[in-house]
């Protein structure tokens, strides 16, 4: 038996039922299951031992990608494969296509969901920087009604989020605006790997930059110092980029772990920021390669 721990399983058909199942007491507690690519691995490791799994894949509220109320709505149960294939995401949030394409491998992307990714909330969460620079809003259902949580307030620590116990993430809304972006992910080798560091940047038509980092702090974080420096400059020159690199290196707080040393992460964040900013500036000007590359891979240069 590959999972030693025993638990109950329920697949509710309605949101109300799902919230009730999460709220009903059970030894070990109840947890939500979406794609399971993190949760089942953690169950196998014995890292978590819930008494009940509540499978959210039967809930219509969590499915689909559409325009809703002037925003791009991405259901929490959208898989990375669905996000990559979505014409709406490609048109309105192409940066999300770029970062989703770098999540693990096809076999994981066919199953793993964006809602699960941000609820797992590991520091290397690939969706984190992208949703942060889009200033996405997390829509949450609780037994006491629905709530909206800005992405900036979402991550509280490694594997800790602002989702109250028993809450369910319904999806994400992303404001629509003309913009360009780029996502850089540093890995130990080509193909699938968790990020040693990641950088997402977004620039709008007025030259307002948003920058976020992954794997270089306890959670994905914004880069306010770099954002202030670049503000209003649609095409930063070499001198400005040099300053931005120094600020980026200073505003991250990496640690040494199995994937790399803190100093390597800190210095690479500067390199990644420079490449991502250049790429986003080129895309804003209508040049540059299509979304769906990793600027850290040699043939993307």
């Amino acid at each position, binding site marked *: 038996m590959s999972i030693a721990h025993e638990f109950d399983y329920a697949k509710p058909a309605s949101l109300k039922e799902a919230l009730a199942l999460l709220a009903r007491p059970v030894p070990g507690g109840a947890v939500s299951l979406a794609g399971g690519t993190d949760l*089942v691995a953690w169950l196998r490791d014995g890292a978590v031992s819930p008494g009940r799994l509540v499978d959210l894949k039967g809930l219509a509220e969590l499915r689909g990608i559409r325009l809703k109320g002037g925003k791009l709505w991405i259901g929490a149960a959208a898989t990375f*494969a669905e996000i990559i294939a979505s014409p709406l995401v490609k048109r309105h949030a192409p940066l999300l296509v770029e970062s989703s394409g770098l999540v693990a491998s096809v076999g994981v992307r066919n199953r793993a969901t964006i809602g699960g990714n941000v609820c797992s909330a590991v520091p290397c969460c690939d969706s984190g920087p992208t949703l942060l620079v889009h200033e996405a809003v997390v829509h949450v259902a609780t037994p006491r009604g629905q709530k909206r949580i800005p992405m900036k307030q979402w991550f509280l620590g490694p594997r800790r989020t602002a989702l109250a116990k028993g809450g369910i993430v319904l999806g994400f809304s992303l404001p629509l605006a003309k913009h360009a972006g780029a996502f850089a992910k540093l890995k130990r080798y080509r193909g699938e790997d968790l990020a040693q560091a990641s950088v997402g940047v977004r620039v709008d038509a007025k030259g307002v930059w948003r920058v976020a980092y992954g794997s270089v702090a306890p959670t994905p974080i914004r880069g306010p110092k770099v954002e202030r420096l670049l503000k209003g400059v649609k095409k930063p020159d070499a001198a400005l980029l040099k300053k931005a690199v120094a600020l980026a290196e200073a505003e991250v707080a990496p640690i040494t772990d199995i994937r790399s040393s803190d100093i390597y992460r800190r210095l690479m964040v500067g390199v990644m920021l420079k490449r991502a900013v250049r790429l986003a500036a080129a895309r804003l000007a209508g040049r540059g390669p299509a979304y769906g590359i990793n600027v850290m891979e040699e043939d993307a240069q």
Partner: protein
Amino acid sequence: MKEIAIRLNGEVRRVAVAPNETLLDVLRAKLGVKTPKEGCGRGDCGACTVLLDGKAVRSCLILAIEVDGQSVVTLEGVGKAGPTALQKAFVKNNVFQCGFCAPGVILSASALLVEKPQPSEHDVREALAGNLCRCTGYAPIVATVLAVAKKSAKKKPASRRARS
């Protein structure tokens, strides 16, 4: 225990499962399907790849109880009517040595060729990036998938063009 029904390689199979049994465990231990392998057990290596409703997924990270009512294809199902063109070409080019990764590689590559009959080299490498091979390396595998795609385009140009 709960009885689930899955369409396994075209045949409806019913089996009683506990919530903590993975799809991989149930396929191998209860349904007698042995081509999906347990390698890493955490979704990295791709040896446990199966097609779930046509899409390549990791059966080690899916609970059997989750796939009630869905269709699962393993290598046993792919080669049901004799080896496919891809399988024959893999044998001819001797792309596998120990064969542990072969079922996963064949399923991932087969799913790719259905979705994208004329993949680029990048597409092939991307589709197989999560199927680790420790023996022969990836060059002969990738070259063979590309060659099979090219050959199938020559054979059926009309239908391929109509689809793209």
